[in-house]
């Protein structure tokens, strides 16, 4: 039996749905399961249901490019994502599941003087907050990633960039299974193939959730939906500063292992890493218009393939093996929205756009603390939805790795 199968076999699915749960979490992706995991392991709250429309991890958690980093551009985000990065480093020991976590380092390339200025500012802020992000020149980038063509194919010359040393990646499915297993062992019910059709409200308070398998009364409800959050929130008349954009990614056929670092260019809007089985995993910017259709486009393949060949010419003979499209709930200031919603007993974890995977442990841990104590932890206070009202948005588009 290999280790993949072994993990799957230890998931204990509930036979039926209870009529009441203390906490009902909508969305069986990374953030929903992580919240359930920390509620069960840290706060002893185990009468918890996770409601998932499809199978766990079938949404954006199973579609992202699995990069874990904390090289952000606003202090609140640097602190939060660095905390998450540290939690990832101990997640294997904590859950007992092999999540294929590997620290690889990430280089963010700059091709213009203004790009270099942005990376210099990023490095200084990161270093001031104890995050190891170093400003590098082209020669240093070439030393870190020998496959790199620093002339950028003559078109996108590499002036330098920032080297984020603790950057890492992990296997997305295994993160989902590890957290689901940890939560289910302690009695959390994960209900797959269950669709939320509405909320039971008592004034400005959510008291229950209606599903296609009947209604459940709930102490607290958590919206941890990815890719469809606006539609689910409409059931509670909750308005969100969210747009849903499609984002495409693909893998090539396998290649000899050797691309050890994660290479990214925020100016070209492109990133590539090599997976454990040797495939090159690539992604780029999301589509400009909102859409839920999950269609792939030739334009995206073409532009990502071209950008990759300018920077890493060795890929020119590889084939695109598999592609997929995710739906990103992008918040208008490119920073997540976590915490209370203004509707009693309804909490939210959304706005993860294209940057949610890295935040799975910290997002779940902090939200669980809020649910258990009723007090919003200091770390996620800046990410409250009322920041739009207070005019304290955390605009940080340049750190999303996309557009």
């Amino acid at each position, binding site marked *: 039996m290999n280790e993949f199968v072994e993990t799957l076999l230890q998931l204990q699915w509930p036979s039926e749905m209870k009529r009441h749960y203390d906490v009902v979490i909508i969305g069986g992706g990374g953030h929903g399961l992580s919240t359930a995991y920390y509620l069960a392991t840290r706060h002893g709250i185990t009468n918890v249901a996770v409601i998932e429309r499809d199978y766990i991890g079938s949404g954006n958690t199973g579609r992202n490019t699995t990069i874990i980093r904390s090289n952000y551009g606003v202090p609140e985000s640097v602190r939060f994502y660095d905390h998450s990065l540290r939690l990832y480093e101990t997640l294997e020991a904590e859950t007992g599941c092999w999540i294929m976590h590997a620290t690889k380092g990430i280089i963010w390339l700059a091709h213009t003087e203004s790009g270099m200025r942005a990376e210099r500012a990023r490095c200084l802020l990161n270093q001031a907050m104890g995050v190891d992000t170093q400003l590098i020149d082209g020669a240093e980038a070439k030393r870190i990633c020998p496959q790199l063509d620093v002339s950028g194919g003559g078109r996108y010359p590499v002036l330098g960039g920032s080297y984020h040393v603790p950057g890492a990646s992990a296997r997305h499915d295994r993160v989902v299974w590890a957290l689901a297993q940890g939560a289910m062992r302690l009695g959390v019910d994960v209900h797959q193939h269950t669709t939320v059709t509405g909320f039971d409200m008592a004034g400005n308070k959510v008291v229950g959730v209606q599903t296609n398998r009947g209604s459940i009364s709930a102490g607290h409800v958590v919206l941890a939906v990815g890719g469809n959050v*606006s539609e689910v929130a409409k059931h509670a008349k909750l*308005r969100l500063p969210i747009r849903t954009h499609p984002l495409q990614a693909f893998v090539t056929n396998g290649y000899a292992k050797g691309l050890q670092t994660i290479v990214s260019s925020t100016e070209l809007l492109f990133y590539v890493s090599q997976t454990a089985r040797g495939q090159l995993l690539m992604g780029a910017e999301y589509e400009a218009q909102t859409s839920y259709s999950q*269609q792939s486009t030739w334009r995206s393949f073409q532009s990502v393939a071209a950008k990759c060949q300018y920077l890493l010419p060795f890929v020119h003979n590889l084939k695109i093996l598999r592609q997929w499209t995710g739906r990103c709930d992008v918040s208008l200031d490119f920073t997540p929205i976590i915490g209370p919603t203004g509707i009693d007993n309804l909490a939210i974890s959304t706005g993860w756009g294209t940057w949610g995977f890295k935040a799975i442990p910290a997002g779940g841990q902090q939200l669980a603390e809020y649910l258990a104590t009723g007090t919003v932890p200091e770390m996620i206070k800046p990410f409250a939805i009322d920041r739009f009202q207070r005019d304290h948005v955390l605009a940080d588009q340049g750190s999303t790795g996309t557009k």
Partner: protein
Amino acid sequence: MLAIPCTSCGPRSVEEFRWGGAFPHVPDHVVGDEARNLDYVWFLDNDAGPIAERWFHEAGCRRWSTVRRDTRTDTVEPDMVEPDTVASDSP
């Protein structure tokens, strides 16, 4: 490929256009001037379904068109295109 029906050029590839966003809409259940202003600036319908949106034919005639698109399927129905009544220099 998503084809956007430009009111002056007919259906053209989406690559030629800049997306101008869906029309802002503040629902009736949002009450009070301040709440409605806040909603207008920051909060969105983000509908999964038919939406009315603006597209700017940047690499073509450089005029704005109003298009109805179903965001679940990305289908644009030609007979649903509304006549362009807005001056070409405004979004």
